[in-house]
């Protein structure tokens, strides 16, 4: 085990896989000479050369679409989106092509493609650079969508993505890049998709979350434990598609109360799907309606105070936990 940042965990995963398999390559905007906006790809051009570390024009559809073609021919391209906000320029290549070609070819091709990059708010990038895309991509069959919350998961899940046979939307949290955590050294350490985990045990309320909101939820849980004596069980989904809600169902069977926390907007968000599934699965066991904590339903503003108001924070999570316990005021 080594103490690594989320950023370094992602870079380590890519470089270890590039060392392991010559079919792995990475492409993106300013990832080579410039070494990446978030410096995830620092040093890679020098080590692997321009055929494997491709600086592309500012052409998201071009890079995503060409990567689909590369993947169909047996390469394992990783496409870095400078931010996932730009990936919607490539929506046709991702949703109409990458996610469909295995199915409509009757299974004649694999598409081992990873599209990765940061998303989410927190650093005053305003409306076009702060969005979250898990429900957008999670809606479509034919792909995996993952959103790791820790450095270890970032590394282990990225390796699973690179070694897979299907397109993976790998959603990184820009606000977590500097976060440190224990990461296994084993180069074959991987984290399988579709396996949620219990991030904190508790008996009173279940919180279901993922990515950065998982960390917010854990902080809230510690405060509730210390200040209120409320023990929250926190479930880290890790994968958005396919969702593994079994640990959440088991937890709610125990706690009878549930809060789902997401950064994105409330309407049609991931939390709606999760809350509906828990209501279906645990209807008779619930002592309160499933509560959702979400971002405010507005484009992300620039001003710091407004951005903070638009983004979920610990106090809202704490209030939601108290609400499902009927313990407010």
């Amino acid at each position, binding site marked *: 085990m080594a103490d690594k940042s989320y950023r370094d965990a992602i870079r380590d995963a890519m470089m270890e896989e590039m060392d392991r398999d010559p079919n792995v390559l990475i492409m993106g905007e300013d990832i080579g000479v410039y070494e990446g906006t978030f410096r995830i790809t620092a040093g890679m051009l020098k080590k692997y050369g321009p055929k494997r570390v491709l600086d592309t024009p500012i052409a998201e559809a071009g890079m995503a679409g060409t990567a689909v073609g590369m993947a169909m021919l047996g390469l394992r391209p990783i496409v870095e989106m400078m931010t996932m906000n730009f990936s919607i320029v490539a929506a*046709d290549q991702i949703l109409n092509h990458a996610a469909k070609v295995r199915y409509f070819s*009757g*299974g004649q091709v694999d598409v081992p493609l990873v599209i990765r990059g940061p998303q989410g708010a927190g650093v005053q990038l305003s409306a076009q650079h702060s969005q979250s895309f898990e429900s957008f991509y999670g809606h479509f*069959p034919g792909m995996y969508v993952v959103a790791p919350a820790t450095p270890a998961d970032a590394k282990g899940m990225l390796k699973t993505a690179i070694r897979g046979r299907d397109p993976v939307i790998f959603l990184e949290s820009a606000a977590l890049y500097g976060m440190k955590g224990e990461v296994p050294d084993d180069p074959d350490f991987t984290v399988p998709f579709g396996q949620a985990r219990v991030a904190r045990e508790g008996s009173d309320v279940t919180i279901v979350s993922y990515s950065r909101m998982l960390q917010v939820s854990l902080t809230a849980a510690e405060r509730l434990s210390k200040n209120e004596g409320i023990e929250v069980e926190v479930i880290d989904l890790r994968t958005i598609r396919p969702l593994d809600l079994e640990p959440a169902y088991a937890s709610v069977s125990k706690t009878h109360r549930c809060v789902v926390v997401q950064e994105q907007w409330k309407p049609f968000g991931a939390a709606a799907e999760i809350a509906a599934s828990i209501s279906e699965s645990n209807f008779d066991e619930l002592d309160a309606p499933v509560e959702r904590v979400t971002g405010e339903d507005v484009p992300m503003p620039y001003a710091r105070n407004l951005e903070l108001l638009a983004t979920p924070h610990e106090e809202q999570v704490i209030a939601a936990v108290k609400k499902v316990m009927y313990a407010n005021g």
Partner: protein
Amino acid sequence: MAKTKTESATAVADPACVPEWTDILRQMILIRRFEEATEREFRRGKIGGYLHVYIGQEAVASGIITAIRKDDIVFSGYRDHAHALALGADPSRVMAELFGKSTGLSKGKGGSMHLFDVEHGFYGGYGIVGGHVTLATGAAYALRYQGTDRVALCYFGDGAMNIGSFHEAMNMAGLWGHEGMCPIIYIIENNGYAMGTSVERHSALTDLSARVLAYDIPSEKVDGQDVFAVRGVADRVVRQVRETGKPYCIEAMTYRFSGHGAADILQPYRTKDEVEEHRHRDPIIILRNRLGEMCGLSDDDVKNFDESAQAEVARALKFAEESPPPEPDDLYRDVVAE
């Protein structure tokens, strides 16, 4: 069939009366008869969805696909039956796909627009106009990355040149070509219409092959009704692209004799006279007349070819009709790898 004077002045193909030319004629007749049968079966309700046939454009598929190697690869848009057949896909399995049967090329999951036959180098069959051009470009990069001298063909219509990702692909192809990493031939099947919108109405610059020059991709036009001319250009261009790893664009001037799709009955965007005028330049008649003049191909020979094509199509129809539909469980297969 109208008597047509052949116009092959620009042909550079070997004019020797090698059997290959009669093979090409037979292939084009098979494609024609196959497509005519699909139109009938669509009207009978045996084929659903959209149906876009290649009638009138046969020389563009056959003239270039016969010039590539077995290990080369081809991408196409939604008017894709001819490309699959020219690559050697089993006509019975193509027809079965159109009938939505489990024995179809794509197991009945794709239909007319999504034929795939990877074993024969056919990588599809795509329904978003122009959307596949990026894929073919990346595939070409992969061929070079893997150290091979294989090449990719990417077919698309004139209408495909107006989608944004087309231009992103062209620019990247031009750049990769500088490094010898993009062995691809883009083939514009310029049949004059993007569905019902004429080239004059959809492209600010109507000289389509000139548009790709902006991306440092050399290009040329060819008479797409004259398979001698098409094949002549293809032989030279395929050799060049294979050697250099640089992209090239061929604009084949052609015409579709049928509507855009099987539902395009009124065709308000063109006149009957215009269609009739182009029918005088039927690529199959141009080739058979040329072979008749040069190589003594007789009417009986052509009749035999036609009968054999009709028999093949009849076999395909019988196979498609008698094949079972996909199993209900197939609904859930091939979404992701199992």
